[in-house]
């Protein structure tokens, strides 16, 4: 009997190990999760609107995506996300069937099949040094019946066969820093002109035979007045250049080997010109455009080389490239912004006074200004020319405009998420109409009857479809009110475009979106970039009549010492409540665990000079903060110098709300042997349920739980490159656990023969990190668990009874920590893009790691697999505790991909938010795509599943009651009969 029991227990424990903690049936897809595909801000677009086939536009974007979009609906036909270092420099369509892309600074040329996006060929172009790149797909240039594609990159010109991607010839221009400006094919000949600049003062022009790659001619001349990097090609032999001061336009004519210059000051073209002028990139025959402030001036270059102003537009304008609509007829479009819409004007290149098309399109202010426009023509039903325009707006959205209306639009700012926070939805208010309830009750019943049919296998295929659609709709899942389980929330998302979105967790729809005024380009703030999002005001006392708000922290420009900007956004309506530009920079934002009397959260902003500024700037907040001043510490990681410094605040201040800081500790890593590559901390809002961990044999260990734990990983400087660039002997990875209050190194450990990239996650009392083991040629994941030894004595019963324990003694960072660490390493098959860990409301539910794999999927891995206490032969007690026998590698169970069949292309981050229901955590993964799901690390032990059939339960109860009655009646009758017998 005993052995039986043991075998049973063993089987049970084995089962619990092997059974995937989470898996999904096919019909459950999309019930709790949603997935959205984006492409990012469009950089370049090519239309493909031949008569045959579907009309489409191929675009390349700043997120290194190449995609083919349906021109009718804006849907994605196909899409490829190139790697993060594989920026696309040029796209074009060759031979009407291939999309050609040039990427990675002109070193990779690829051809994709236009209808389905399959890669046809790939060519690696090599050259001596990096340079600007340029792509030219000549329409009618053939070498041995083969279309030639010309790509300039890395200082070389390559001619590549269009059919199979072979390099036909290669010409090294042997000029050290030749920056190509244009590649021109003179029509009707096989000559290619390359025009560009060396440095900022020399103009170079090369003429090359496209058939053989022979260099026919090379001219160079010094440009008077210098060169600012802006040039515009006016004709096949004329280039217009802006000088470095931005005040003089130089026309360069390079016909027949003669290079001639003529200079014209901008002030002669434009009256009352001050400041700097810019040349717009425009490829229009004979015309170039100068931008001064908000004005755009079109200037024609006459045949004699004279300049004359053609038109002047007083708005911010985007100008399209030239479109050849018929023989010798060129059209181009420009779009400018009005207060409540945009104006699209299409003109013939030759005839300025006549508009081919002039349309006004209504549009709200939320899209900002027009950034780019691409036009395409079609033949209308009345045989005249019609135009459609693809417009890229300031908020990175993409619109297709035709016949004065927006045909479709895409919110592609969501491809570049910077930060995510959640906000609770409004509390449901009373006064729901009765009719609505009745209707929903009827629907509810109907739904359950349908489900019952499904369960009893009585449903017809139609019914099954109805059931599925019902489940997908899941009444109430997209309601705009708080729910009992805390599944419905708003995801507040800050994007690179400076647009803030609120997404509903139920179905992923955009509840509101707001292009923040403070994050738009202005004269005072050239290049604003969003940094972080913080919950600013979360009302609890007045949750019914006050809206929560979020704080958006940003700075003017990429450097640390750029001035900061704050804006406050209402998370229910998306209204920008207020914004302010700061008089100091923002390096770090510390959300403090304090609130003022109006429930605004206190934040400390650290500037580049080390001063701390308190927000909100109210005396009330200061009153709350002052007593806690001495207990506020912060640290900075200087990765370049390899120093980590800790700071405390000082009482004295220049004005009331800013405080001086002073360094109190520093850790100096020797620069010859260590380089910081990764730091990681615990999430501030993480909840730990219990400090004690009961281990086998009824023993307990105390977790060392500190909010101030910093994980730092350093590698040998030699090994900081790519994998394979160093030998195992000269590479090592050292991991540190540092207390950020006192700067104590709690634990230090060396992995010899290991190198980065390191991804790490810190939670509760453990750290898990992922790196590459050069000796084993495998990726590895290691775990460090930290236990507090100072509390270990508390297990003595008598001490507990007599009150001699130290359980109630306060914890201080200045007490000497007595810690014990346990660690273990395991092999892991994948490289990893990001690691996160599930978080639940009370921290009771066991944890699972969420690993963003190289395949852009999210894998859930039980933390128990990364337990340092795993051993080859766990004892019976350990097995009962759930310790898995030791293996050398971590298993990848296909069912535990929480993204199931989907991919979150370009995965960058995984955010977990606890739901109110303890068993469940909400997961939001973002990259180019967005993915959201609900996940129960230990299954939903505290609620019935959504497809629980209440009707079946009801039916069973009714049937049972009926059965009871029937049997009762029967037995009564029988008894009566017996009595009469």
């Amino acid at each position, binding site marked *: 009997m005993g052995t039986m029991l043991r075998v049973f227990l063993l089987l049970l424990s084995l089962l619990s190990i092997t059974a995937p903690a989470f898996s999904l049936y096919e019909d459950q897809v999309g019930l709790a999760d949603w997935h959205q595909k984006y492409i990012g801000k469009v950089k370049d677009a090519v239309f493909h609107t031949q008569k045959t086939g579907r009309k489409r536009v191929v675009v390349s974007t700043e997120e290194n995506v190449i995609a083919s979009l349906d021109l009718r609906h804006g849907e994605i036909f196909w899409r490829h996300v190139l790697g993060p270092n594989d920026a696309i420099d040029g796209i074009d369509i060759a031979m009407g069937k291939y999309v050609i892309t040039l990427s990675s600074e002109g070193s990779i040329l690829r051809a994709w099949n236009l209808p389905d996006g399959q890669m046809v060929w790939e060519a690696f172009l090599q050259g001596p040094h990096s340079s600007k790149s340029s792509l030219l797909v000549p329409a009618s240039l053939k070498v041995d019946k083969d279309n030639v594609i010309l790509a300039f990159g890395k200082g070389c010109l390559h001619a590549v066969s269009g059919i199979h991607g072979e390099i036909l010839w290669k010409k090294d221009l042997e000029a050290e820093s030749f920056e190509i400006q244009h590649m021109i094919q003179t029509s009707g000949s096989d000559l290619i002109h390359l025009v560009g600049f060396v440095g900022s003062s020399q103009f170079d022009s090369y003429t090359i035979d496209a058939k053989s790659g022979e260099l026919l001619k090379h001219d160079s001349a010094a440009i008077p007045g210098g060169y600012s990097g802006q040039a515009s090609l006016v004709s096949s032999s004329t280039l217009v250049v802006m000088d470095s001061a931005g005040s003089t336009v130089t026309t360069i004519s390079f016909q027949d080997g003669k290079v001639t210059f003529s200079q014209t000051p901008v002030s002669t073209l434009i009256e009352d010109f001050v400041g700097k002028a810019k040349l717009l990139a425009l490829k229009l025959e004979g015309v170039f455009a100068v931008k001064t402030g908000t004005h755009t001036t079109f200037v024609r270059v006459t045949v004699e080389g004279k300049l004359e102003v053609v038109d002047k537009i007083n708005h911010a304008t985007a100008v399209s490239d030239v479109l050849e609509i018929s023989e010798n007829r060129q059209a181009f479009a420009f779009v400018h912004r009005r207060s409540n819409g945009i104006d699209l004007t299409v003109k013939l290149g030759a005839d300025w006074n006549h508009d081919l098309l002039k349309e006004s399109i209504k549009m709200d202010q939320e899209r900002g200004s027009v950034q780019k426009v691409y036009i395409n023509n079609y033949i209308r039903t009345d045989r005249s020319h019609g135009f459609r325009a693809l417009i890229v707006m300031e908020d990175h959205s993409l619109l297709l405009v035709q016949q004065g209306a927006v045909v479709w639009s895409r919110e592609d700012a969501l491809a570049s998420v910077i930060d995510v926070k959640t906000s609770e939805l409004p509390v449901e208010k009373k006064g729901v109409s009765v009719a609505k309830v009745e209707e929903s009750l009827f629907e509810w019943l109907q739904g359950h009857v349908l489900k019952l049919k499904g369960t009893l296998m009585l449903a017809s295929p139609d019914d099954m479809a109805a059931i599925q659609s019902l489940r997908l709709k899941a009444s109430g899942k997209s309601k705009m009110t708080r729910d009992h389980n805390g599944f419905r929330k708003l995801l507040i998302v800050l994007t690179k475009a400076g647009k803030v979105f609120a997404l509903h967790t139920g179905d992923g729809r955009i509840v509101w979106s707001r292009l923040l005024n403070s994050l738009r380009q202005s004269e005072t703030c050239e290049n604003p970039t969003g940094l972080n999002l913080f919950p600013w005001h979360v009302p609890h006392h007045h949750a019914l009549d006050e809206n929560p708000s979020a704080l958006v922290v940003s700075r003017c420009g990429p450097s640390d010492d750029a001035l900061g900007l704050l804006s406050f956004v209402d998370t229910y309506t998306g209204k920008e409540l207020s914004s302010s530009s700061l008089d100091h920079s923002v390096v770090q934002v510390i959300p403090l665990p304090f609130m003022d009397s109006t429930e605004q959260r206190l934040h400390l902003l650290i500037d580049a000079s080390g001063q701390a500024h308190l927000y909100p700037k109210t005396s009330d907040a200061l009153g709350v903060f002052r007593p806690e001043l001495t207990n506020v510490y912060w640290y900075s990681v200087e990765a370049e110098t390899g120093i980590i410094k800790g700071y405390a605040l000082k009482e004295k201040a220049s004005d009331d709300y800013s405080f001086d800081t002073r360094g109190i*500790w520093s850790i*100096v890593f020797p620069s010859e042997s260590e380089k910081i590559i990764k730091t990681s901390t615990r999430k501030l809002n993480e909840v730990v349920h219990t400090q004690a961990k009961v281990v086998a044999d009824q*023993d307990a260990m105390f977790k060392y739980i500190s909010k101030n734990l910093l994980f730092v990983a350093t590698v040998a400087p030699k090994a900081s490159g790519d994998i394979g660039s160093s030998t195992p002997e000269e590479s090592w990875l050292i991991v540190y656990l540092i207390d950020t209050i006192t700067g104590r190194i709690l634990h230090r450990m060396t992995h010899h023969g290991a190198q980065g990239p390191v991804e790490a996650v810190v939670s509760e009392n453990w750290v898990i990190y992922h790196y590459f083991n050069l000796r084993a040629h495998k990726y590895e994941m290691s775990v460090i668990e930290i236990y507090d030894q100072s509390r270990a004595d508390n297990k003595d019963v008598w001490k507990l009874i007599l009150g001699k324990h130290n359980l109630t003694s306060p914890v*201080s960072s200045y*007490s000497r920590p007595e810690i014990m660490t346990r660690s273990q390493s395991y*092999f892991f098959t994948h490289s990893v893009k990001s690691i996160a860990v599930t978080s639940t409301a009370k921290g009771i539910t066991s944890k699972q790691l969420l690993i963003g794999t190289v395949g852009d999927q999210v894998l859930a891995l039980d933390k128990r697999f990364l337990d340092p206490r795993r051993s*080859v032969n766990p004892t019976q007690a350990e097995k009962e505790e759930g310790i898995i*026998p030791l293996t050398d590698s971590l298993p990848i169970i296909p069912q535990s991909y929480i993204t199931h069949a989907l991919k979150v292309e370009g995965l960058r981050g995984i955010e977990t938010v606890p739901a109110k229901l303890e068993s469940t955590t909400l997961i939001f993964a973002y990259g180019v795509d967005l993915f959201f799901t609900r996940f129960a690390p230990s299954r939903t032990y505290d609620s019935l599943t959504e497809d629980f059939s209440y009707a079946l339960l009801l039916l069973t109860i009714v049937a049972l009651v009926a059965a009871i009655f029937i049997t009762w009646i029967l037995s009564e009758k029988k008894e009566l009969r017996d009595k009469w017998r």
Partner: protein
Amino acid sequence: MKMRKGELLVLFTLCFVLSLIAPSHSGFQSDELLVDNDEVGLPQTQSQQSSSVPKSDQTTVTPPSPTPRRKFSDSDSDSKIQFTLEHAFGDSDFAPAGTFSARLKTSAHGGQTLTKLRFSRNALTDAEKENFKNLVDGDDFYKIRLPSNVLSPPGKDFVVTSVRARCLPRETLDEHFVIHADGVNILGVNYGAPAPCSYPHPAKLPSKWSFNSYTILKNTEQAPRTPLFIQDVLKNGEEGEGEVVAPPERSFWAKYWMYVIPLGLIVMNAVTQAMNMPEEQASGQPGGAPAAPGAVQRAPSSAARRR
């Protein structure tokens, strides 16, 4: 008295419950002298008046390292080096406060390691005592710093650390150094009082103005290697399937309580039912009493009929 009784009861139940959990606790009792479980060496402490005499002696044992260049041979050359500890009171400037002396072992492969760290503290001057008092009153930081490179101080930068001044005073000034070193480089110093230092803490001054120092030198630890035992696992797996590892023998009660309790319940239930049955019959009788004679009567009559 009643209260006592209640308390006693609680105490007993607690004892009982805990005695079930506690049998192995003795195995985990930590030695309080041990500073850190994973410390490389054990500190010796000497409580002495501040003088130039070394206070604490610390030998470190370098962990066996798989890399050959860190291994030592007998031909290692030793050299003595010294570096100074500097301290500062609050925001004051740093001033020398003591000297560390150590032996620098140079291995045949060029790797250098610090060993045999000794420390001597300078006596506090009256001005420094005054400063320290001010620190304790203002709950300010007492800072120390060390050069980050012992051969060419200060190296890249000083390694600074600080502690709230209120934490140090006991009978004397108790301090505890853990110096994290890598070759000749000092990465960081864990500095503080050996005793817990809670907040807020009564501002107390030491009765003896002398330092009682512990010093520990720590080198990096080796990470455990990833287990490489595919065959082992297979073997063990087979074994595990073939025969279950014998668990420690337990008492009959511990093994079969889950069977015994339901059985007991069933028996109890049966017994109570059996007890109730006669009662029910007894209580059921009054209602059926008039009928009973009939039945009794009828029985013979039916018997008679059958006959």
